[in-house]
């Protein structure tokens, strides 16, 4: 009996240490590179001369320079969506490949008057448009709950587990159970 208690205590300590260790991977609050803050309008740029390049599938040098100036990852491919709207794709750098190792939609360019507006994709758009592709699960709620917010759900399960343990400690019968009649 003592061995069981000791090993249970050891398990609990290991699990606690694991949860604290893996919490290091969660992005900081207010970090502009973290996924929840991705709906950001970045800058405007003069449109003349750039539109032809974009329509031909070439990334204009001045646009790439401006993106690099801000310390953001460089796009590798352009795809036209509609008239005056383009998606920029990029292959994630090595540090990010553990999150998602494939090419991903990253910037969104829109023509507004004489200028091009450059956006980064938000989490919501990624969630709705790419979730099924990324996880092969058609239920948006499930891949949100179990994959994108998996650590959160682990916490919820721990809450239920704690409720069960508390009930067990408070209401457990000390004596013998009556036999079935």
């Amino acid at each position, binding site marked *: 009996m003592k061995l069981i208690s000791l090993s249970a205590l050891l398990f609990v300590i290991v*699990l606690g240490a694991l949860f604290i260790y*893996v919490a290091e991977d969660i992005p900081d609050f207010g970090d502009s590179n973290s996924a929840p803050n991705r709906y950001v309008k970045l800058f405007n740029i003069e449109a003349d001369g750039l539109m032809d390049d974009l329509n031909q599938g070439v990334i204009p040098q001045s646009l790439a320079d401006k993106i690099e100036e801000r310390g953001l990852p460089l796009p590798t491919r352009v795809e036209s969506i509609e008239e005056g709207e383009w998606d920029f794709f990029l292959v994630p750098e090595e540090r990010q490949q553990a999150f998602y190792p494939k090419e991903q939609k990253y910037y969104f360019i829109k023509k507004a008057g004489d200028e091009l507006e450059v956006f980064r994709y938000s989490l919501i758009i990624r969630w709705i448009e790419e979730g099924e592709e990324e996880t092969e699960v058609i239920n948006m*709620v*499930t891949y949100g709950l179990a994959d994108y917010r998996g650590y959160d759900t682990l916490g919820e399960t721990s809450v239920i587990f704690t409720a*069960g343990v508390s*009930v*067990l400690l408070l209401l457990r019968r000390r004596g013998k159970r009556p036999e079935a009649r």
Partner: protein
Amino acid sequence: MNTGKSETEEGKKRSGDVIVETISRVMVPFIQLFALYVIMHGSSGPGGGFQGGVIFGASFVLLVIAFGIVNAGNRFPEAVNTALFSTGVYIYAGVGLLCIICSLGAAQYLNYGFLSLPVHFEERRALGMDFIEIGVGITVMAVIAEIFFNLAWKKEEKKEGGKE
């Protein structure tokens, strides 16, 4: 259903109504099958571990309501139940840890794409989600049963204490 009236009667074997007992005995396997369906169907429709676990726990609750805690409760050993609800959390946490181990520390915790399964990256994420749903389901089922059984035993004890 578990009325005090039946205890005063001479035949103490049955505590409830024969209709209730028969119907619930027939229903319980279907409820449990439906619970398993809800857990495994979570990835392609409404459902998931929490819901399926609650339905599975509800089947035990139905048994206890129909047969009385003394007859039904002894079939579920408390030790097994206690072991089950920590097993669920360990399945969940273990799948997360496996992702780190299988990728030799490159991937994050709970990044199911790096589990060593013989399918492609996205399919692994779907399978990883199914595994953790099973873990959640086991935990929820065991906790629901645990809470209800303990409350029912408490009531039974009081009743017996008052009689003596």
